[in-house]
Structure formats: C-alpha cells, structure tokens
C-alpha cells in the first residue's frame, strides 16, 4: 500500500486531470448529484469560514459603496439589476486545485460601479467586505478596473444561490477564488490594499491564476 501511495503522489496530478476531463461533463448532466461525491468531479466545492450560511432576503439586501468617493451610495438589488449587465464565461479556479470550467456569470462591471460613485484622487485600492462581517478582501484600483471583474448577480442564468454567495458576490476572473468575496455587503475605496482573510493566513495578495501561490494553473 505504501508503494501504491507513493506512486499515487507522484503520478496523481496527471491521473486527476484525466479523471476531471472524464467526470466533469458527466457531473454536469447527473440529475442525482451522486457524482458530486466523487473526488473533484468537476463541480464547485463549498468552503466556508463561518458557521452558518449568511442570509439576506432579496428585498433586504443592500450593497454599500463607500470610502474615498464623491458620491457614496447604498444600492438595492433592484438598482443593481437595472444597471447595464455584462456576461462573462470563465473558469473558476480555487487555490487548493479544483476548477470549474466555463461558468457563465452576469452582473455589473465593478469598474462601472466605481465610476458611478466618483473615486477621489487619493483612492488607490478597493476593499470588499461580506455582509456578515467575517470576510474581507481587496484589490488595487487598477486590478478592480479590469474588464473581467464583476459584481455578480447571476450564475448559470439563475440568481446567485445562497451557498454560492448570493444575492450578490464578487467575481475576479483572473485570480484564485478566495479573492471573489461572497455575500458582498460593502465596497469601499481606500488609499492602500489591506491583506484579506486568507492573505493574513499566508496566501498571496495578488492572486493571479497560474502566477501566484506557487502554482502553475492555466489562466481562466
């Protein structure tokens, strides 16, 4: 068994890739969801640092956009839905190794939201906080203005579910999943990047997929 174990460690990465490409499409069309029990059958995994899933009814949900801005705003879900929507179809990559391919996201471009509140000259970074207060993340202003950073309202054509971080979550396509703050409650413009939840625990602040955290995954 030790021999098999050692062989698995050395050859496993390639075996996992082969299995992913086999099981991934199967998992997507499996009505029972049982394939979800198999290791990394191409689906999302749920990693939460809180006890229970934060809950906010659609009608009660508010997104505060504050900090070094000329016109701070508090947006309802309806207001967000009324803004021009953008769709991105990109992979979601977790820093622990699992990846979900070609996820359709739609929502408001973060860059648009930032422009609409009028960032002050001192603003150099954007901070994000989950609405239960547990999770924090941030991006540089330049990173936040990319055309692949979304304040996401839907996934797979449906409103973002609660386990996935709904009603509103961040999606930073070029970076590892921990940057994509779930249960988004506040966006705040600041003068510097503050290390977020996982970064304080050792993960890279600039979490570029394939070029950070000692990993070489293909970019999303």
């Amino acid at each position, binding site marked *: 068994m030790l021999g098999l*174990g050692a062989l698995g460690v050395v050859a496993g990465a390639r075996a996992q890739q082969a299995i992913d490409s086999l099981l991934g499409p199967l998992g997507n069309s499996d009505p029972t969801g049982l394939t979800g029990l198999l290791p990394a059958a191409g689906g999302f995994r749920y990693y939460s640092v809180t006890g229970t899933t934060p809950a906010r009814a659609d009608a009660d949900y508010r997104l505060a956009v504050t900090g070094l801005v000329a016109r701070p705003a508090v947006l309802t879900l309806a207001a967000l839905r009324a803004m021009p929507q953008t769709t991105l179809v990109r992979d979601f990559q977790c820093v622990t190794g699992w990846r979900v391919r070609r996820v359709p996201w739609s929502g408001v471009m973060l860059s648009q939201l930032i422009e609409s509140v009028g960032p002050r000259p001192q603003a150099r970074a954007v901070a994000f906080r989950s609405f239960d207060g547990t999770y924090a993340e941030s991006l540089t202003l330049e990173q936040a203005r990319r055309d692949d950073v979304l304040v996401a309202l839907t996934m797979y054509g449906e409103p973002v579910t609660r386990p996935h971080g709904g009603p509103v979550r961040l999606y930073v396509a070029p970076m590892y999943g921990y940057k994509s703050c779930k249960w988004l409650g506040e966006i705040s413009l600041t003068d510097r990047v503050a290390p977020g939840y996982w970064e304080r625990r050792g993960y890279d602040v600039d979490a570029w997929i394939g070029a950070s955290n*000692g990993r070489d995954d293909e970019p999303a």
Partner: protein
Amino acid sequence: MSAAEPRLLRFTRAQRWVHWSTALLLGVCLVTAACLYVGPLAVLVGRRALVKDVHVYAGLLLPAPLLLGWLSAAMRADLRTLNRFSPADWDWLRSSDRRSGRVPVGKFNAGQKLNAAFTAGSILVMLGTGLIMRFPSPWPLPWRTGATFVHDWLALAVLVVTLGHLTKAGKDPIARAGMRTGVVPLDWARREHGTWADERSRPPAQPPRS
C-alpha cells in the same frame, strides 16, 4: 453467555483499547472529512478552519493507539498472526463455504487479516499524504496535487471498507461481545476459529515425571 458455558479469552484490555481508540479516531476523521467534502454538509456546518483542525489532529493521532499497543505482548502476538497469510487463508478466500469448517481457520480469518492490512496501510498512506496537504511548502506542486488525489480516493475506499466492517460486526453479536468484553464462548470459537479454539482448549500437557 451463561455463567456455566466454557469461554475463551480472545482479547485482553490492550487489544480492546487499541481497537476502540483507533475506531474513535477514524470515526472523527471520517465525520470531519464528510463535513469538509460533502456539499450539503459543508453548507450546514461551515467552520472550515475548526473542522480542518479537528480532522488533522485526529489524523495525526491515528497511529498512536497501535504504536502504544505494541507494548503489549498479547497485541504483538495478534499482529504477528494478522500479518501471516497461510495457504489455508487463500483457500478460505476462494471457497464458497467459508463457515462450514472445511477450511481450517485460526484466531483471525483471512478477511480479518485483509482488513487489518488495509487499515494499517491506509493509516500510513493517509498520514503521509495528509502531511503533504497540511504542510505544502517543501513539496513540488505535482506531488501536492498527487497527494490530494490519493488522499481523496483512499478516503472513499476507507469509508467503504469501514462500512463493510461495521456490517459484518452488526451481524455477529458474539464477535462484538468478544471485542467489548474480551471473552467468547468456546463453541462459537470452535465454529468460527476452529484451529484457535482447539489450541486454546487443549488440556495442559502433563509435566514429565522426574
């Protein structure tokens, strides 16, 4: 068992302690693994940092009962027996009438020996791959991915084997009593572990007359 029935001591306190401690630790590992892994459970429990820590500590402690048990002569004897496969064992595995008594069975039947081998092997492999996952820095990325791959799939195998073990135990109340109290009735032993029962119930040899 009635007081009058002849009985054999199958497991001393040492062996029982090793069995139950390992079972508890493995149970904790499996439950925490499920909470880390199975979507609906993860959503319910969350608290990933805490669950992960409990999982890691239980995993690190997993070999400890066996290592401590090594101090017991009775435990060492059982480990030697479990580790030795005879031609009769292979015969038993192949046969369709395992419990007829046609194939001689010692203290442990071949299925139990396989279970023990699998358990010992899994504990070591899970510990090794788990350490790579818990302390990733010195290891090259493909090895870390490989370790995760082995850890994930072996966990499934361990779950299946554990469920099989529990099913078998569930069907044999006397075997369960043996692991709980250490003692089994002689006639059960004759049926299930004939060779062992014969050895243990042989009248003591007469001392040579000097």
